[in-house]
Each structure stands twice: as structure tokens, then as C-alpha cells.
């Protein structure tokens, strides 16, 4: 079983027992999300579960065969699955993902993943040292932030070890092995302990598994942290093939660090960039990367704050800090990055906070929220934008104090509780799907983002084709001729998705006439099947993969599915399997079907699969006001491709329903209910899933 460690650790927290599960049993699901979903299916005693805080919930933390290897941007991701906390109206079975050095260490310790069941009767942490595993008392860690928790656990693990000159001994089966590596720790903070929807898992300074409320899941299980240290390695089936592909990726597809093309189009060829989304606090910084990654997208600073906070976390408070800083960018940077530290320490998810806080600010200025007002809050709202406000706000959310009590189950839930449901319907609380905030890629403009989220369970956060928005619109903003014209773009992307689009690239056409078409459903299927296997199970990083086009290459073809550095080349080199790229997509289809079966048992029906009302009722005018570009490949009435604006439109209910029917039919699901059918499930080797759906009276009917 090259690539795989061969065993999964099951921890039943109720009985405090440990069990080894043979990975072979779940091998066909690849790793990550696929294995997590299959384990949930097999181990969850009640799949009607609607709140991830129930003890029946099964939470998996999974690596993949590629973790711990040097496959570019795939060696350090880790996938977390289970029923979530915070989505609306149901805590669907969901996923989140984080980077760093946890999954690689898990593999080096000899485990493909950890699956948690039950609930401990008092706080515990899990101590994994190679094959030596123990649950330990965490009562003295309860209440500690994520950084202190990680530090205390590292000290505990190392203090009892035989250490000298930077080396220390880790027990192995028959003897001790030496390492210089400290344990990798994944922990929750107060937001998770208090079982709030904002709770996430944090590893290192800023590797957060944010979405889905998994901090609350761990908090409900009384699990404070998992510590892992290993001294093994990952067996690679064909190291020479792996190195060949790695060098090809570097020499053919990647940026040349000595002569970078800053205007390049694509993903794998991006110039590594370790800057936060506000001004870097200092030039004295060091790049920080996940295991084996070519990007190095995080940084550590000599000033000692903002370390490893990236993307949303390094920006969530910027619009508010800007008011206080009055044009001082370094002041904005310090407030935002220090507030990022607070978020990381409390173990809170910054993603929904930004959009949520905009809404709270609106309620404050409307005289609805504040001291003695209808929504009573004693937070210092007049100081919104200061670091002190951020501290108090995050503390309140994480500890269920002040308005944190009402927001603990989620943002839409709070709007309903406060009688402000109309704010959500009208988009004042811009949460278009499943209780998640809009990501800036509104479903009315960027169709695949909206549809892919709608038919799954969380903001998809998948930049597979979203990269087109960036490449095209930044070029146009600078007055440059697009480096790839719209027709060529459609051809390049269409060729990568040939099996799905059947030679017709019109799925990429987001024009008004094609918004609800079967071809867009085919495009979304490709994205989801890719996502579910290559990205969420094999754990290729979203910031680099897929590589659908690449201006570094003469033919403009990206690395995805290529015979020299495609995903399957790396997969086969590591695992010794011989699968095609399309077979990987087929595994993704099976995993998506398993997801849909779980959601079906949780209560999903196609009638629930709807956007928030403002998506149907109001035109998308946000960019019209802010930024005059949202150009996307479209065809005119003669079929000629061009980049055209997709702004200022809304989705029709009838159109979305038509699109859903296309999607369900293509997936082989019952279009009346959205439930999977026996024939589809059996064709994917999931007959046992069909049996359980049938027993529950929720098996889709076959179409004549």
C-alpha cells in the first residue's frame, strides 16, 4: 500500500478506547474527504443527525497518500469531515481543510487519519507518538487559547522524553527513534469549548480549519487537542517517476523564480507570494509553507504578530480598522494582524465574521443594536475598528457573552431570533446559501460558485475556474489585451473537461441565455467531482490546482490531466496504482454520491435546495457600484466568444429549478426529490448505501 500508512486510528471518546482500522477497507475513497465520508457512513449510528454537537457525530481528520511527500502543493493539506455546526437550516455533513505540518506528521507516525466517535465525560487530549497512543487529561488545558494549548502540550511531550542536543526520543514498536521535530498539534480554543458555530481548529500560529464549526464539534466531544509526532516516512511506489513529474511541473509549468512573469495566467505558474492581505508589518519576514509546498503563501515576521495569518484572516477586520486609521496603512496592518492573532488564539473562524460584522454595524447605526436597544449589547460599538473592539467582540462570540449568546448557533439563526429575517431575505445580511456569507463571487454573476455551493453544503471556496475572473478582469483593469482570448479560453478549459462537456465548451458561457443550461450543469459536475477526489481527498491545494491553462506553456495547456505532470501522474507515482485522471473524477463522483446520501438521510429534499431570497429578487449591482468589471467568457447569438459583463442580473426561481433538474438527471439522481437512485449507487459500488436509503424510505425513484 505505497503512499498509505495502512491504518486509521479510531478513538471512541465515550469508552476511551482506541482501535486500528485497516486503511485497505477504505482505499478506494483515496484519503481525505472520501475516507471521512465513508467512515461517517459506517460509524455514525444516527445519520438523521442535524447538529454536529450531538455525540453521535463522527468527525474524521484525514491525510492522503500524497501527504508527507513532495508532490507540489499536495503534501501538507489535511481534511476534516463530520456533521457541522452553524449552517442553516441543517448542520449538514460537511468538510473543512487546513495546511501546515499536521497531516505529514500523521503519516510519519504511521496513520492515514483519525476518526473520533462519542463524547468524553471530561476534557481530554489525544497523544500520538508513532504507534503509542493515549488519551490524556486536559482539564487543566480547558479554557486555554489555541497557542498556549499547543505550547503546553509540546512541553509535556518533550519534557518526559530522553533529549540531548536538540534531539529527543520518540517510542517506536521495539525501540525509540530520534527526531528534532516537535509534535504537531491541532487544538480548539474558547470558541470551540463553548460549542459556538464560530469555533474552528487551529494548528501552528495560523493554520485554521475554519468552516463547518468543527471547533464546536470537538468542544462537544470534550476533545481539546490532538498531538502527533512520528519518526517514520512515506513509502513512495516509484520515486523516480515522482521526481520526474515534480521537475516537469517546475520546469515546464511553474514560474521561473529568476525571471518571473508577473502577468502570467494560470495557477501552477503563479509567483510565490507570502504577503498578507494588508500591508506587511515589516520587511523582516520569513516565508512559511505547508509540507512540501511550492507556494510558501504564509509568513512569519520579526515584529512577532500576524504570523501565518493569510487570506481572509489577514483581512477580515480591515474595512473597520480603516475607519480608525484614517489613511494610515501601517496602522490598519497592525490592527488587522493583531486581531488575526486574537481570532487564531480564540480558535474562531474569521470567514463569516466580516460579512456578519458589516450587518451588526448596520444594526448599530440603525439604532437597533447597542446598550439598552432592542438587541441589547454592551460592546463599545462606537469604537468599532479598534483592536480593543476586536478583542471584546471576539471574546463575546467565543464565550457566548453579550450578543455572542444569540450568535452561537449561526448568523442566519440569530437574524431569525432577533426578528431580522428580512435583513437576510433582502441581502442586508449577505448570506446566499446554507447560512454562509457571500464570498465575493456572487451566484448571480459567477454561476459555478453559486451552483456548486447550492448542490453541496457550504461555500464551495473552489477557485478551479474562478481564476478566469481574476486573470481576465485584472488584465482589463490595466487596459491590457487578455493573454488568452475568450474562444481559446473556452477551448482550453473545455479540453480539460472533455469527458463531461462532450466536446462542447458552452458550459463556460455564463451569458444570460445559458445561465440555466445543461452545459453549465456539466461544468459544475466536473468541478465537484474534481473537488471531491483530487482536491478534498487526494488533497491537492486549491491555490495551485487544477491547472486548466498556463501562459508559461507554448500551447497554453495547463498541467491538469497532462501525461507529464497531471494529478494522476503524481498519484500513481506515490501509490503504485495505475488510474487515469478520469478515473479519479469517477471516484469523486462516488464520493459526491455518498455525500448526497448522507444529506438525504439528514433530511435534504430538492425543495430545500434554494438560494436566499435576495439572489432571486434583487439584481446583482454590487460590482456595478464598486468595480465596473465582472467579465466572463460568453457567446453571442452567432456563437462567437468574447469576455462580457455578467453584472446587474438576478437568478430566476424557475431557471434555477430547471438547472437543478439538469444536474440531478446528469448525476443519476431522482429529479423529483434529488435523492440518489439504486442504479446510480450500485454502479458506483455503493449498493449498501442504496440499501440504507431504501430502509429509510429515502431512495430516489428511477426514471422511466
Amino acid at each position, binding site marked *: 500500500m505505497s503512499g498509505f500508512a495502512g491504518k486509521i486510528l479510531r478513538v471512541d471518546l465515550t469508552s476511551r478506547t482506541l482501535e486500528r482500522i485497516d486503511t485497505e477497507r477504505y482505499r478506494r475513497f483515496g484519503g481525505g474527504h472520501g475516507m471521512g465520508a465513508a467512515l461517517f457512513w459506517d460509524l455514525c449510528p444516527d445519520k438523521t443527525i442535524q447538529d454536529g454537537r450531538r455525540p453521535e457525530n463522527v468527525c474524521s481528520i484525514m491525510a492522503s497518500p500524497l501527504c508527507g511527500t513532495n508532490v507540489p502543493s499536495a503534501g501538507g493539506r489535511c481534511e476534516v469531515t463530520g456533521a457541522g455546526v452553524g449552517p442553516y437550516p441543517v448542520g449538514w455533513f460537511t468538510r473543512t481543510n487546513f495546511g501546515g505540518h499536521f497531516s505529514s506528521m500523521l503519516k510519519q507516525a504511521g496513520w492515514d487519519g483519525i476518526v473520533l466517535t462519542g463524547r468524553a465525560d471530561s476534557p481530554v487530549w489525544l497523544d500520538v507518538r508513532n504507534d503509542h497512543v493515549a488519551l490524556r487529561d486536559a482539564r487543566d488545558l480547558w479554557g486555554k487559547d489555541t497557542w498556549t494549548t499547543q505550547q503546553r502540550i509540546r512541553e509535556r511531550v518533550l519534557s518526559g522524553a530522553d533529549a540531548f542536543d536538540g534531539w529527543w526520543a520518540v517510542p517506536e514498536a521495539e525501540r525509540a527513534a530520534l527526531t528534532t521535530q516537535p509534535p504537531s498539534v491541532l487544538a480548539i480554543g474558547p470558541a470551540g469549548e463553548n460549542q459556538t458555530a464560530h469555533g474552528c481548529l487551529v494548528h501552528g500560529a495560523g493554520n485554521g480549519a475554519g468552516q463547518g464549526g468543527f471547533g464546536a464539534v470537538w468542544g462537544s466531544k470534550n476533545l481539546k487537542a490532538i498531538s502527533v509526532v512520528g519518526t517514520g516516512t512515506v513509502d513512495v511506489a516509484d520515486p523516480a517517476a515522482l521526481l520526474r513529474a515534480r521537475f516537469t511541473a517546475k520546469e515546464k509549468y511553474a514560474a521561473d523564480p529568476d525571471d518571473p512573469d508577473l502577468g502570467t495566467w494560470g495557477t501552477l505558474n503563479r509567483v510565490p507570494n507570502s504577503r498578507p492581505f494588508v500591508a506587511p508589518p515589516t520587511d523582516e519576514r520569513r516565508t512559511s509553507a505547508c509540507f512540501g509546498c511550492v507556494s510558501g503563501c504564509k509568513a512569519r515576521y520579526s515584529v512577532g504578530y500576524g504570523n501565518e495569518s493569510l487570506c481572509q484572516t489577514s483581512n477580515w477586520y480591515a*474595512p473597520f480598522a480603516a*475607519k480608525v*486609521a484614517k*489613511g494610515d496603512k501601517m496602522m490598519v496592518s497592525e490592527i488587522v494582524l493583531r486581531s488575526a492573532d486574537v481570532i487564531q488564539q480564540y480558535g474562531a473562524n474569521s470567514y463569516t465574521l466580516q460579512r456578519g460584522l458589516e450587518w451588526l454595524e448596520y444594526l448599530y*447605526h440603525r439604532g437597533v443594536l447597542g446598550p439598552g436597544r432592542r438587541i441589547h449589547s454592551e460592546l463599545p460599538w462606537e469604537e468599532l475598528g479598534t483592536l480593543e473592539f476586536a478583542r471584546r467582540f471576539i471574546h463575546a462570540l467565543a464565550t457566548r457573552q453579550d450578543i455572542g449568546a444569540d450568535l452561537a448557533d449561526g448568523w442566519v439563526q440569530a437574524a431569525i431570533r432577533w426578528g431580522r429575517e428580512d435583513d437576510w431575505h433582502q441581502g442586508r445580511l449577505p448570506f446566499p446559501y446554507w447560512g454562509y456569507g457571500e464570498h465575493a463571487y456572487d451566484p448571480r454573476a459567477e454561476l459555478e460558485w453559486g451552483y456548486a455551493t447550492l448542490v453541496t453544503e457550504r461555500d464551495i471556496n473552489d477557485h478551479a475556474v474562478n481564476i478566469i475572473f481574476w486573470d481576465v478582469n485584472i488584465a482589463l483593469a*490595466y*487596459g491590457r489585451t487578455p493573454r488568452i482570448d475568450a474562444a481559446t479560453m473556452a477551448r482550453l478549459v473545455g479540453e480539460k473537461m472533455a469527458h463531461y462537456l462532450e466536446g462542447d465548451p458552452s458550459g463556460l458561457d455564463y451569458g444570460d441565455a445559458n445561465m440555466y443550461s445543461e452545459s453549465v450543469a456539466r461544468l459544475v459536475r466536473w468541478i465537484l467531482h474534481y473537488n471531491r477526489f483530487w482536491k478534498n481527498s487526494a488533497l491537492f491545494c486549491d491555490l495551485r490546482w487544477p491547472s486548466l491553462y498556463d501562459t508559461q506553456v507554448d500551447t497554453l495547456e495547463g498541467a491538469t490531466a497532462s501525461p507529464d505532470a497531471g494529478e494522476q501522474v503524481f498519484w500513481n507515482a506515490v501509490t503504485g496504482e495505475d488510474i487515469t485522471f478520469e478515473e479519479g473524477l469517477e471516484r469523486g463522483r462516488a464520493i459526491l454520491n455518498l455525500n448526497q446520501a448522507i444529506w438525504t438521510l439528514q433530511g435534504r429534499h430538492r425543495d430545500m435546495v434554494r438560494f436566499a431570497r435576495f439572489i432571486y429578487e434583487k439584481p446583482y449591482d454590487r460590482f*456595478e457600484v464598486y*468595480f465596473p468589471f465582472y467579465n466572463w467568457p460568453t457567446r453571442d447569438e452567432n456563437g462567437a466568444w468574447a469576455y462580457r459583463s455578467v453584472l446587474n442580473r438576478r437568478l430566476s426561481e424557475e431557471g434555477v429549478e430547471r438547472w437543478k433538474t439538469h444536474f440531478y438527471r446528469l448525476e443519476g439522481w431522482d429529479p423529483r426529490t434529488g435523492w440518489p437512485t439504486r442504479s446510480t449507487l450500485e454502479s458506483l459500488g455503493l449498493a449498501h448505501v442504496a440499501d440504507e436509503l431504501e430502509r429509510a424510505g429515502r431512495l430516489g425513484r428511477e426514471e422511466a
Partner: protein
Amino acid sequence: MRTLAAPEPELAKRLLLGVRYEDRLRAGLLVPPRGVVETPVASLPELCSLLEPDARCLPAVHFDTLVEWIGGVLGDTELAGRIREAVREGCYVDGCRAAHALISERLAQARSCAGAV
């Protein structure tokens, strides 16, 4: 380039102090790959910072809205008019840079005026 006429103290104060929540300029920053981050603007220093050229991101502002806000809400019709002229030519980023140059100039004038007062 023609320089802007020095602002009256009252205008300088208004530009620096900023406007009420409901009168803010709807604007944002386009931060790859995060998307447009809404960053409403209340004052000239905030606007100047938003438009400052930055390799990490692009300002997200509609020029018509910008001109209307500066002229109508801030009451600086001269600056508004000059920006309207300046953004007429060139691409979007050129327009942002031209607007930024004018706003920087006005900001320095306003600060100088406020300091003198």
C-alpha cells in the same frame, strides 16, 4: 498639471473629519483571490489610502459614484470636477492613479489648512 485651489478651512475640516455612516462612499478593495472586500469610505484620508497604488490589490470604485460623492457629499466640487476630467482617458488603473494623485494633493492642502487653523 494644474494645481487645485487651496480649500477653505470649513471644507478642509469636512474632508478630514469624514461623513456619517449612511453617507459613506460605497467602495472596496479587490484582493486576489479573496474577491472584493467592501471598504466603505467616510473621509478623504481613507479614500486616499484606498486608491494608493498597491501591488497586492486594486481599488474597487466606480468613477461616476466617486465623483458624485466628492462633489455632493463632501462638497468639494473642484476636486470632483478635476477627477471627472482625469479619469476620462486611459484604463481603469490609470484612472485610479490619476484620481489618487489629485486626492493626495487635496489631502495635503487640507491638512496644511487644518494645521494653520
